[in-house]
């Protein structure tokens, strides 16, 4: 095996997951790491949509909520098996995304942004108002733990051993999707819809697929979230949370799968580390969104790498192609 292969991100990811499992025993850190995993699921989906589909969802918190509440209500109120509830959540989210996508994706430009934004707010209002189902503003309690092969996933460590391998699979799936025929169609779509169409890409179908796909990721993340916390409330699924997800995508870089992990990690850890960050969260998100999109539209990491390479080229007197 040549040394470059050790630097393969997948090998690094696997090694990192194992390392954390072996080294970190503090419940607080593990819980934080679990949340990073769950948010990365959400961000990867949104990133596929934004980076490859060229569309934006301003209501992704709503799909997250649908997954979480379907799982929560079916298990806590109706005593259904959590895994079946998770599947039910996927079905609900997939169908909903399809229904929203049908009219919104036929039209170009802003329509998906608007439709998802409206949808996000309706779902949030519904969570607060439909108290008989959702428990209203005070939330839904008593959501049971997941179990796997007779083990109840009732500690952060056990949840970690579920969430991160699942995340690994999802990341692998996403990378696969991006490099597949569909992925190439997506990239063609992003670069120019008319050109993609003329080459025989069914743009409407591809866009729909990616949108439903991203909603399914969000639903999965929501179900995991509900079973991790055992409690959910509408305040986790606000418009601001949707914006936070977009900020994570933008920070990590659009069309970057590993960037999604980075974006989710940074914006989950920073508020925990710095109370200042927590207080000024909204301003900071706004500033990140504007500054990155104006000056480094390829994302913070890629942008900084680009700048660095540019400087190196200049120093060496090379020609920039």
């Amino acid at each position: 095996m040549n040394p470059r292969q050790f630097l393969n991100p997948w090998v690094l990811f696997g090694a990192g997951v194992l390392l954390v499992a072996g080294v970190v025993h503090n419940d607080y850190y593990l819980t934080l790491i679990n949340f990073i995993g769950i948010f990365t699921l959400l961000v990867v989906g949104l990133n596929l949509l934004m980076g490859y589909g060229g569309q934006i969802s301003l209501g992704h918190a709503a799909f997250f909520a649908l997954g979480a509440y379907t799982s929560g209500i079916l298990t806590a109120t109706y005593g259904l098996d959590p895994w079946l509830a998770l599947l039910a959540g996927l079905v609900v989210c997939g169908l909903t995304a399809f229904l929203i996508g049908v009219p919104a994706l036929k039209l170009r430009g802003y329509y998906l942004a608007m439709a998802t934004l409206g949808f996000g707010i309706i779902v949030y209002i519904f969570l607060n108002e439909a108290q008989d189902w959702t428990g209203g503003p005070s939330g839904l309690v008593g959501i049971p733990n997941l179990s796997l092969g007779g083990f109840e996933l009732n500690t952060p460590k056990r949840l970690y051993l579920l969430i991160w391998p699942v995340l690994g699979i999802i990341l692998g799936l996403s990378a696969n999707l991006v490099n597949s025929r569909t992925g190439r169609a997506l990239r063609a779509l992003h670069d120019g819809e008319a050109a993609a169409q003329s080459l025989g890409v069914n743009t409407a179908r591809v866009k729909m697929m990616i949108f439903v796909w991203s909603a399914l990721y969000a639903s999965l993340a929501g179900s995991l979230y509900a079973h991790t916390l055992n409690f959910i409330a509408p305040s986790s699924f606000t418009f601001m949370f949707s914006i936070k997800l977009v900020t994570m995508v933008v920070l990590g870089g659009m069309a970057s799968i590993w960037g999604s992990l980075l974006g989710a990690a940074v914006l989950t850890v920073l508020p925990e580390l710095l109370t200042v960050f927590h207080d000024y969260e909204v301003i900071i998100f706004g500033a990140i969104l504007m500054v990155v999109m104006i000056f480094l539209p390829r994302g913070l990491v890629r942008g900084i790498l680009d700048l660095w390479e540019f400087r190196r080229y200049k120093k060496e007197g090379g020609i920039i192609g």
Partner: protein
Amino acid sequence: MELAPILQYLISGLTNGAIYALIALGFVIIYHATTIINFAQGEMVMLGALSAISIYHFHPSLPLAFLGGVVLVTLIGILFERLALRPVKDPNHITLIIITVGGAVFIRGIAMLIWGKEAYSLPSFSGDAPFHLGPATLLPQNLWVLGLTGVVLLALEAFFRLTLVGKAMRACAYNPRAARLVGISQGRMVQLSFALSAALGAGAGILIAPLTLGVYDMGTMLGLKGFCAAILGGLGSSFGGVLGGLILGVAESLATGLISSGYRDAVAFFILLLVLFLRPQGLIRGGS
């Protein structure tokens, strides 16, 4: 069903609808000049209300507060275009959405720093003694909102139809290239469109402040509803935007009264989704 409550809902619906109409016009004007949807439009409404309230506390004169608020927010609108949108090198729609959403969130955060989370009140423009209109009551502020909105709409229409600058703006929206050929600076027109819509937003915020109080987070919902109104009207036409605003206001108010007040804010978005489903070109086909 009794007539009195319906009439009452109609009055409050039209009042809110007029505010939505003003905000919708802001969206339409910027959309015309740039095909940008400015998600920060709602924050201009909030800034208008809160800065007018602050000016009023400093020097209790309503005309001064109104004028001061509008001028200040107009400058902020121009600044926003200048600093956040003009430098964008690759203006595809997803970049622009993210920037204006970021701008909205940023402005809202700053407002929270300046004014805190409490709500402030502005006195009504001419007292609070209600009129009786048949079985319903009408506040003087309702009349101010409706009347001033009407005046502003007429003035805008005159501006776009009769003045040279207004005609230049329309030319730019209709065919930017041809407009440039006859010597119209598109950059200036874009700046003007941001100034105009910021002013409209600020005006809307100051008009509604005596009825609803001013809070740092009022802009988001108002902006989104103005936006729904603009979509309802087809996003291309001013008349459509105004009509959309009024329909939305009345629908919301009737739904609040007849169904449940908890779902009040959902009405606008329900209508939005319905329009996207059934008639995405809006109730009135958009045109320049």
